[in-house]
């Protein structure tokens, strides 16, 4: 008795295959990609009566014609040696359609087990199956299942155990298409067997005979099969004489005829089919007038759901990482390996933490998408939006990912997997970075209030987003009419009936995407954080333009509190006992305590003390920040900025803006914090008013606008680039995309800046 088996799970799209897969394997599944194509591969395992079973979830297909990457993958997987059994899932509410694939799977001569899924729905619809008769037609045992129900796969497990036990004499299915057709198939099969080629095992000669008889392009290209071409042509001519049906659809026609006969014989309808609820919902959902508003409402609700639920969780994650940072800093004394300490805290923890903060967003977004997908709404959305998107060279299914791009480009690019046409998918991915994502918002929030009057601020913000959308659509149009030219592929999309998504499948879907995001944070983001930390730190400057340290020390000496001052402070009770103790020791009021204390609450002598301490503190702070700025200018980041300055002057950037923009290529949020350090404001965030004052003093509104434009049009972050590489499965494409976006951003900004300078638009300093 063997102990391990490989079972392939095959079926049409939307036949409930995934729910069967989830029910059998639980969460023990492995998701990956088939090499060379963007078809997701999924496998899982479970133990049945001590037998270890590996279940391979093949992509959903209607046939084995090799007319799509999915069909190609299914054929390759099934003809690989080592598949012990095909588990074919049938949507039993539409048996005639679902069994079409079964007729082709049967030709592979692999033992097969049919799962008539959704049997509860079929019963409601009034369908009655004569199972023994059907088993005879298809030469395979049949089990009725309800994949989405907890105990719905029990009968399947029983039958599966039985099948695996008697696998040797399980028998293989053999279908009959009528005498003349069977004769023709046999004649060609014999010729192929006579060739004795062993590219594929002998089992498949009947399969290839049928493929040749229906002029299948892929089968006709196989050189080993060329010698039988004349026999094939003779048989085709003979069949044409009898049936008068073109070869390419001949077998399809025969299969449907055979299925129609089988279904008439073995399936009965007890009552007239009533108009299903699903169709009623669609009267509203795909209604000519309501469909678009409804679609926008649903998309809006998806965003609302994502951001409302994720917001508090993001706060917790942020708190956790700042706590972790503090903890490491307090445990690890600054004296031992100080560089490694800062690299871990300010580099790794801040960098990776800054990315993990978005994890709740990703999870909720994909939960919402899974609902739309599993319920069947996504196909309707694509149907409704197709007309508009087609005008820009895209298609209906491109719309949702593009809108998601406003949130974050990374999940948006992952969401393009629903686009079946490879070319449309590629174009959608390539133009997605133009959709202004949330990470660019801090830049706009910093710049717009600095350079634009309040009444124009909303307009400028809106303008930036609109520019992004227009550029994306124009670029799609351009790409489709140049690099990705060609007749559109045949568009065929099933609109499956609405179904209630199961909680389990939603959770699994969400976790799949979440896991990918975590992997990304653990690899690319981690590496980039370390790299940028190093670039911002080295080489370290040792000789400064002024001796900051001793100057700071001098102020500290001069402004130190004398005994009288300390006594005065203690008596006033202005400070907590703990802080008071520290003040006595340092002879200086800690800056955190100074920020909190309100001098109006105290008598004049104490006020004088606080004020002078505060002034001294600020002075020391300024010196420290100047030192930091000098340090940064000396580092690789600073030098790169300096070196690029002549180039960036075309788009109105000085070396500081250039350095920050280069840093922002890693992640757009970096721009604000980098610029903050350069302008010696320390930990700047978008609301820091002094940084804005610096900007107003040093740049014109035109330059401010150029900064935003450049941020909008260049690559949003390394993570986006990484995900583009993975989804397009090409380093070359990802690299080209990054370069093209950079050049485009640079040229557009240069044109705007140069024209603006020429016509003196926004070139006056505001202060």
């Amino acid at each position, binding site marked *: 008795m063997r102990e391990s088996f490989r079972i392939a799970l095959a079926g049409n799209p939307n036949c409930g295959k995934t729910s069967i897969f989830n029910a059998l394997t639980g969460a023990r599944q492995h998701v990956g990609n088939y090499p060379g194509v963007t078809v997701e591969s999924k496998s899982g395992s479970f133990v049945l009566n001590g037998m270890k079973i590996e279940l391979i979830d093949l992509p959903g297909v209607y046939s084995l014609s090799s007319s799509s990457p999915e069909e190609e993958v299914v054929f390759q997987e099934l003809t690989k040696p080592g598949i012990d059994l095909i588990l074919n899932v049938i949507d039993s509410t*539409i048996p005639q359609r679902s069994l079409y694939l079964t007729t082709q799977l049967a030709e592979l001569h692999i033992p097969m087990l049919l799962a008539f899924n959704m049997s509860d729905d079929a019963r409601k619809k009034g369908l009655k199956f004569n199972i023994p008769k059907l088993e005879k037609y298809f030469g395979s045992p049949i089990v009725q299942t309800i994949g989405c129900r907890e105990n719905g796969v029990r009968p399947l497990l029983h039958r599966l155990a039985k099948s695996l036990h008697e696998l040797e004499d399980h028998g293989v299915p053999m279908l009959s298409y009528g005498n003349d057709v069977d004769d023709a198939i046999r004649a060609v099969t014999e010729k192929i067997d006579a060739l004795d080629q062993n590219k594929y095992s002998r089992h498949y000669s009947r399969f290839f005979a049928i493929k040749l008889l229906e002029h299948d392009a892929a089968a006709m290209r196989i050189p080993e099969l060329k010698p039988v071409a004349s026999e094939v042509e003779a048989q085709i001519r003979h069949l044409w004489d009898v049936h008068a049906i073109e070869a390419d*659809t001949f077998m*399809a026609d025969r299969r*449907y005829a055979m299925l129609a006969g089988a279904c008439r014989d073995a399936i009965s309808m007890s009552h007239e089919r009533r108009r299903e609820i699903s169709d009623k919902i669609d009267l509203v959902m795909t209604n000519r007038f309501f469909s678009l508003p409804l679609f926008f409402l649903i998309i809006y609700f998806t965003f609302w759901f994502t951001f409302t639920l994720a917001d508090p969780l993001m706060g917790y994650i942020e708190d956790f990482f700042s706590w972790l940072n503090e903890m490491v800093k307090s445990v690890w004394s600054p004296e031992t390996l100080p560089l490694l300490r800062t690299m871990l805290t300010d580099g790794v923890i801040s960098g990776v933490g800054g990315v993990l903060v978005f994890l709740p967003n990703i999870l909720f977004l994909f939960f919402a998408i899974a609902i739309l997908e599993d319920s069947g709404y996504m196909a309707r959305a694509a149907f409704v939006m*197709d*007309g508009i998107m087609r005008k820009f060279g895209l298609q209906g299914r491109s719309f949702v990912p593009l809108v998601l791009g406003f949130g974050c480009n990374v999940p948006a690019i992952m969401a393009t997997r629903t686009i079946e046409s490879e070319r449309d998918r590629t174009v959608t991915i390539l133009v997605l970075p133009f959709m202004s994502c949330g990470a660019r918002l801090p830049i706009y929030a910093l710049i717009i209030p600095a350079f634009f009057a309040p009444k124009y601020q909303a307009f400028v913000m809106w303008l930036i987003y609109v520019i992004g959308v227009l550029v994306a659509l124009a670029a799609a149009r351009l790409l489709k009419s140049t690099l990705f030219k060609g*007749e559109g592929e045949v568009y065929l999309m099933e*609109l499956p009936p609405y179904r209630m998504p199961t909680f389990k499948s939603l959770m699994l879907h969400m976790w799949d995407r979440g896991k990918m995001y975590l992997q990304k944070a653990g690899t690319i983001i981690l590496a980039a954080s370390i790299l940028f930390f190093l670039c911002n730190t080295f080489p370290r400057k040792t000789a400064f333009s002024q001796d900051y340290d001793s100057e700071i020390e001098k102020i500290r000496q001069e402004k130190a509190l004398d005994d009288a001052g300390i006594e005065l402070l203690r008596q006033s009770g202005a400070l907590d006992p703990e802080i008071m103790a520290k003040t006595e020791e340092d002879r200086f009021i800690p800056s955190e305590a100074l920020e909190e204390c309100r001098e109006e609450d105290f008598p004049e002598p104490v006020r004088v003390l606080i004020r002078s301490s505060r002034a001294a503190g600020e002075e020391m702070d300024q010196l420290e920040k100047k030192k930091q700025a000098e340090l940064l200018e000396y580092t690789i980041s600073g030098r790169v900025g300096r070196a690029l300055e002549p180039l960036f002057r075309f788009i109105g950037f000085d070396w500081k803006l250039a350095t920050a923009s280069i840093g922002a290529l890693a992640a757009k949020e970096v721009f604000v914090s980098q610029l903050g350090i350069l302008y010696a404001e320390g930990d700047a965030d978008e609301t820091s008013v002094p940084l804005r004052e610096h900007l107003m003093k040093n740049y014109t509104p035109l330059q401010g606008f150029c900064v935003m434009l450049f941020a909008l049009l260049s690559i949003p972050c390394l993570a986006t680039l990484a995900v583009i590489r993975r989804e397009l499965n090409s380093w070359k494409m990802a690299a080209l995309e990054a370069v093209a976006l950079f050049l485009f951003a640079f040229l557009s900004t240069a044109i705007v800046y140069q024209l603006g300078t020429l016509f003196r638009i926004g070139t006056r300093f505001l202060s």
Partner: protein
Amino acid sequence: MAGVKCSCGCSGKGKNPEYTVNASGVTTLADLPVGAKATISKIMPKARGRKKFADVGLVAGAELEMEAHAPFGGLLRVKVLDTSMAIHSEDAANIVIEKEED
């Protein structure tokens, strides 16, 4: 026009009547109004995607029903073998049909 059921929501009162007359004088799936049923009599031999159509049940002899037209044109929603399929009108123009009178 009372009694005309139309899933596009216009309840039968479209703007202006639109006629498409095919040069070859045959009726194709692209001409089938919403709500009407028909039988495929033939798929043009040169039509692209013949095999793909065949795989989802669009073969000569198949019965179908036009369920809806997408807004802004382009896609048609056709019910065949008890399943709704969205198909482009350009491709539908290659599917010759015989309208069912009822």
